[in-house]
């Protein structure tokens, strides 16, 4: 009892959380189609914008969305960042590119990984396409797409990004 001990001011107490994720109608529908390798969004009946992933409503118009629209796995880069920061336990090796991507036929971006690219030349308007995991690994998750890689296609001009469907420029 006589030995001097350093005062303990804190101890490590790990906590683990496991969620049962209730997706709701729109997200459940989306995830079941992602499991089939398809990206299916929903169109707003009021502003005609296509949401991917769909949320069952258009937050801009405040109306429910039900009409399903399959969109391409080709996208346009809206913006991006190159992540250099190391995060403990992160399976992705920095530096890596995270891009806000607008799929052909949709009007809102989602975030995904960009790979097989030169990080220094990634740019707004760049055309990219999904690289899917092997079909036997598909699950109810956007991680079915491993990453996106650049396409050898002309850039979409800034003012058209998210406003025209692109693929083949048939507008």
């Amino acid at each position, binding site marked *: 009892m006589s030995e001097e001990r350093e005062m303990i001011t804190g101890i490590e107490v790990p906590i683990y959380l496991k969620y049962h994720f209730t997706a709701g109608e729109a997200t459940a529908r989306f*995830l079941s189609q992602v499991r089939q390798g398809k990206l299916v969004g929903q169109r*707003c009946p009021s502003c005609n914008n296509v949401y991917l992933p769909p949320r069952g409503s258009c937050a*801009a118009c405040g109306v429910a969305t039900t009409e399903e629209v399959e969109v391409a796995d080709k996208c346009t880069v*809206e913006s991006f960042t190159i*992540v250099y920061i190391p995060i403990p336990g992160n399976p992705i090796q920095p530096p890596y590119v995270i891009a806000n991507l607008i799929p052909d036929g949709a009007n*809102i971006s989602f*975030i995904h990984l960009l790979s097989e690219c030169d990080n220094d030349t990634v740019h707004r308007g760049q055309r990219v396409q999904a690289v899917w995991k092997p079909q036997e690994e598909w699950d109810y998750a956007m991680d079915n797409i491993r990453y996106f890689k650049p396409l050898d296609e002309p850039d979409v001009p800034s003012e058209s990004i*998210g406003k025209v469907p692109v693929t083949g420029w048939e507008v």
Partner: protein
Amino acid sequence: MANLAAVVGIGQTKYQTRRGDVSIAGLLREAAVKALEDAGLGFDDIDAVIIGKAPDMFEGVVMPEIYLTDALGANGKPMLRVHTAGSVGGSTALVAASHVQSGTFKRVLTVTFEKQSESNAMWALSSPHPFSPHLNAGAGGYFAPIIREYMRRSGAPYDVGIKVATKDRLHGARNPLAHLQLPDITMAKVEESPMLWDPIRFLESCPSSDGACAMVIADASLVSESPKPPAWIRGVAMRSEPTMYAGREEVSPQAGRDCAADVYAQAGITNPRKDFDCAEVYVPFSWYEPMWLENLGFAEEGKGWKLTMEGATSLDENGDIPWNCSGGVLSSNPIGASGMIRFAEAARQVRGDAGAHQVEGARTALGHAYGGGAQFFAMWVVSADKG
């Protein structure tokens, strides 16, 4: 018509990487006791306690409020917790103010905190969702592409963020409570610091801090019972918008513009750059200074960066509208408290009690906070004048 209320006491802890000497309750009590001392009051003079913090995962302590009642002298009194992500410090102050302005209570103690050292906020902000790939990018990964879009649209030179990062740390070096004390910082040092989320460098990002901030807000009839000058609350506003919708303006969110218009109208502000003597604005990443200069109407769209580069927002360059004289979020970031620190520092300025970072003769100031995917906004206007 709301009753007139004022800030009569302010208490802050020293912000630092880790406060291993106190529990969460001890940290909050420290700020609360300082605020009460500043107000010349005791816990018995308080009618209700309003607290706020960011998500529970930031400490891994779920519902910390359930063990904070006694530490904050709230036994037998109403206690309420507020949460609006990063803006929570601001919205907590506004909820506290509204309880006085409505006449519900005469004196309210409000306290916000974060003890970031207890967990990992980056991890807490990168939880996996099936509808989105798990990219582990944290807040910087979310805001960097939006900053990049601001740079593209405005054509601002690459070093505007570097200038903000330098300026706010020089401000912070005047404030003994600021976490980062970098009196020798230069733009070259910021530029040489590692890139974290291109275009955001290490020194262009806020630190992770432990700390708490508290205020006592009193009805006008009780203001004279506190010894120091009050900061009259002349306008209060909050706005929210969804994180994601087609065509959303992410660089200059509508909710921010609407919130500013509302709070300015209440306080009779018609030209923010002229009518305010200073502002404490939530800038967690350097580029958010020029972006919010525009969103809040201090500059025209696309021109905010010019104010920054001209030194208009710098105390050291005798700018006409100093922003974040306390050092801002870039110098101290106990997330849940960061918004309230803005509100409290605006109040310190108009009370003439800001020490070495005082703007001489400041009479009217803006306190601002934002949070979530830049979707929650909270603002107040405080003044030495009753109006």
